[in-house]
C-alpha cells in the first residue's frame, strides 16, 4: 500500500491528510486517487511527484514500493 500525503490545496480537495492505496506505479496510483476522490480529477497531471523524498518531474511510470510515501507537488523549473 503506497501512502499518499496531502498538503495544502490537495488536502482541501480531498478532505484527508493522507490515504493508503494499492498501486504498483504512479500512473496506477493517480487512477486510484481519481476514482476515490472525484474532486481530484485531472489535478495531478504535470505535478512534481516526491516518492520517498526524491522529486520526480515526470513520475508517470515510476514504480512504487509497498511502503512508498508519495507527495504531489506543484511543477518546478526555476530560472
Amino acid at each position: 500500500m503506497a501512502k499518499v500525503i496531502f498538503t495544502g490545496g490537495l488536502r482541501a480537495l480531498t478532505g484527508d491528510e493522507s490515504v493508503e492505496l494499492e498501486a504498483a506505479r504512479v500512473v496506477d496510483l493517480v487512477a486510484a486517487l481519481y476514482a476515490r476522490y472525484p474532486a481530484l480529477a485531472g489535478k495531478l497531471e504535470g505535478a512534481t511527484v516526491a516518492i520517498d523524498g526524491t522529486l520526480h518531474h515526470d513520475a508517470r511510470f515510476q514504480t512504487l514500493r509497498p511502503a512508498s510515501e508519495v507527495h504531489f507537488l506543484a511543477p518546478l523549473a526555476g530560472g
Partner: protein
Amino acid sequence: MSNPKSDGGERKYKVVGTRPIRHDGLDKVTGRANYGADLALPGMLHGAILRSPHAHARIKKIDVSKALAMPGVKAIVTGADFPEIGSGGMAAGESHIDPKDLQANIMARGKALYHGHAIAAVAATSVEQAREACKMIAVDYEVLKPVLSLEQALAKDAPILHEGRKAVGVPPLPEGDTNIMMRLANAKGDVDAAFKTADVVVEGWYEASMAHQGYIEPHATVVTTRENGQAEIWCSTQGPFAVKSMVAVTLQLDPNLIRVTPSEIGGGFGGKTTIYLEPVALLLSQKARRPVKMVMSREEVFRATGPTSGTRIWAKLGVKKDGSFVAADTRMEFEAGAFAGSPMGAATMTVFASYNFPNFRLEGLDIVVNKPKVAAYRAPGAPNAAYAIETVIDEAAEKLGMDPIELRLKNAVKEGDVASYGPKFDRIGFVECLQAAKNHPHYKAPLGKNQGRGVGAGFWFNVGLQSSATVSINDDGSAVVRTGNPDIGGSRASMAITVAEEIGIPVERVRPLVGDTDTVGYCDLTGGSRVTYATGMAVIEASKIVIEHLRARAATIWGCEVDAVEWRDGQAIGTNGASDNKPLTVADIAKQMGHTGGPIIASASVNPPAAGPGFGVHICDVEVDPETGRTTVARYTVVQDAGKAVHPSYVEGQLQGGAAQGIGWALWEEYLFDKDGKMENPGFLDYRMPVASDLPMIDTVVVEVPNPLHPYGVRGVGETPIVPPLATVGNAVSRAIGVRMHQLPMTPPRVLDAIETKKG
C-alpha cells in the same frame, strides 16, 4: 531511469574539479562569438513594435493604413493576425503559462494591460523606417484606471484586469471578478496554540520591489520563413526547444515546421525562458516573404519583458528561550504583472523549507496588476520568501541574545527531516554550510564604526528535467559532445570535463557544441540550475556507451572477447588471455575505426529527478553613513553546498554573481512607476544595478556534500545564491543602524528615514 548512486566523494577524479580554460572563451574575448543581435541575412527586414502608452486601456480600433503606405514598410501585424486560441495548461515550471495569456502578452488583444504592452509591429527596410511607421499607426484607446499596487489590486472597488476570470486554488476563494488569480495555503499542527507557548514572538511585513533580471543583452531574433510553412528562428534564449513549442502554440503552427537555433546568450537569469519577439517576427516574415530581424531596446526590455514580482510578505515566528522554533505563519502577496503566474507557488514551498517548524501556516496570493508580466528570475519566489523569514529569524536571535548562526543550527533541516513542502530530505548540506560560515574568519572579524553584520540562509530545489547528449569520436581520437543547452555561464566546459573524465582524454581534446532543435536531441531549458546536473548526466551516459564501443573495437583489433578488454585511464587494456596486447589509446582505436565497424558515436537521454536541494549561507558586513543613509557593502562571503564542483571557477562565479544580484535588489534596484503606471526608470542610469565600484571582492566557500542522485554528487548551484542576500544585507543594515528595515531596496532616503524615526 535508474538513480545512479553517487560515489560519495571517494572517487578520485582526474578532470572533474579542475579549472580548464572554457572552450568558448577564445571567441568571447575576441568578439567573434555571435549573440542574438549579431546575425544579418541578405534581404533582411527590420521590425519594430508599437507599444501602449497606457497602463490599462481598451483597444477600440487600430488603423495601420497610413503606416503601411510609408516608404520601406513591407508588413504590419496586430493582435488580429494571431489565431484565436483557447485557455489551457502548458507546462512551464512553477510559473504555469496559459497559452492564451502568453499570446496576449506578446501582442495585446482587446486590452492593453501595461504601459509598453505590444499593440502592433512593423517590418521595414530599416529600423528607423519601421519606428517611424509605428508612429503613424492610429490606435483608438478607451483609457481605464490602472491597478498599480497590491493594495490597489485588493481594494473592494479595484478595476479588474481580466473580467470574468475566476481565482483558482485553495478555498476560501474570492467570489466574482477579482485580481487574485490564485490562492494557495498549507498548514501543519495547531499554529495559534503553539504561538502561545513561545517565549519570543516576532512578526512584520516585508516588502520587496519589482526587479529585473538585468541581462546585458536585450532580446533579439532573426526569423526566416519559407513557402512550405517552415520557419527558421535564430534567437537569444535559455531554451530553444521551449521557443519552438511556445511559438507553435501561440501561432497554432505544426512544431515540425519550426527550427530554432540558439545564439550565444548574453545573460538570462530566467528572463529568457519565455518568448516576446519570435512569433511577431515570424508573422512579419510570412507577410513580407523576407527574413525579419527584431532587437529590443533597453527601454523595451525594462517596460515589456518579465521582471520578477514585487511582493508584500507578512511573517511571524515563535521561538522558545532555548532557540527552538515552535511556530511560523506567513501571508505572501505576489504581483504577477498583467497576467496570472507569479512565482508565489515556489515561495510557499521554500519559505519554511530550511528549518524544522513543528507548526506552521501559510497563505500565498497571485495578484495581477497593470505592470509587465513577470518572468522567472533565478530561484523564482524564493528570495522574496527568504527575505521575510530570514529577517524575523534574525530579529528573534537579537531578542533572545543568541548568535544568529547558532539559532539557525538549532533548527536547520538535515537528512531524514520532513521538508515543510512534504517529503523527507535526502542527504543535504545545510548544517555543513552553517558550520562553515560560523568558522569562517569573516564571521569572527571585528566590525568598525557604523558597521553591522548580517547573516542569511537560502534554499532552492534545483531541478532535473529532460536532457539529451551525443558524444562522437574523431579519427584522431579527439571527441565532440553535442547538447541542446545554450551555454550561459561555462556549461560547455562542464560538458567537456565530463567527457574527458569518463573516456580518459585531455579536456582540450573534447569539443563541446550547442546544437539547434533539429541537430540535437530534446533538452529542457538552461535553467533551474539543471545543466551540469541533468545534461551532464546524459553526457556521462553517452560517454559510457562510447567506452563500450571502444572496448568492442579493441577486442576486434586484438581478436579477443570484449570481456577481456578493460577500459582504464583512457586506454583499452587486455586481461584474461588478451593481456599480452599493448594497451590501445582512444587515438589508436580511432585510427582504425573504419576497419572495425565505422564511426564511433553514442547518444543518451535522461529525465532525472530534481537535482538535490541546494543550501547557502551568506555573511555580509555593511557600513551605513548616519548622515546620508548611504549603505556600503564592506565585506561579503557566500557559503554554499555544490555537491561536487565540476569546474570550481564557474561554481564560484555563480555564487558571486547571484550574491551581487541579490545585493543590488536589496540596496538599489527597483521599478518606479508614475501615477499612470509608466515606468519612470527604464534605463541602467536610473535602474541602478551594481557596478564594479559598488562591491567588494565576494569570498566563496564551496561546501561539497555529495548529491546521492548524481554519479559525481553534483548539485545545481546557479539559483540558490540569490536567495539569501535580501535578508542578509537587510539584517546587516538593521544591525548597523539599530532599527529593523522593512522595505527593499534600502535606499539612502529609506535608511535615513529609519534612523530619524528611531531618534524620534
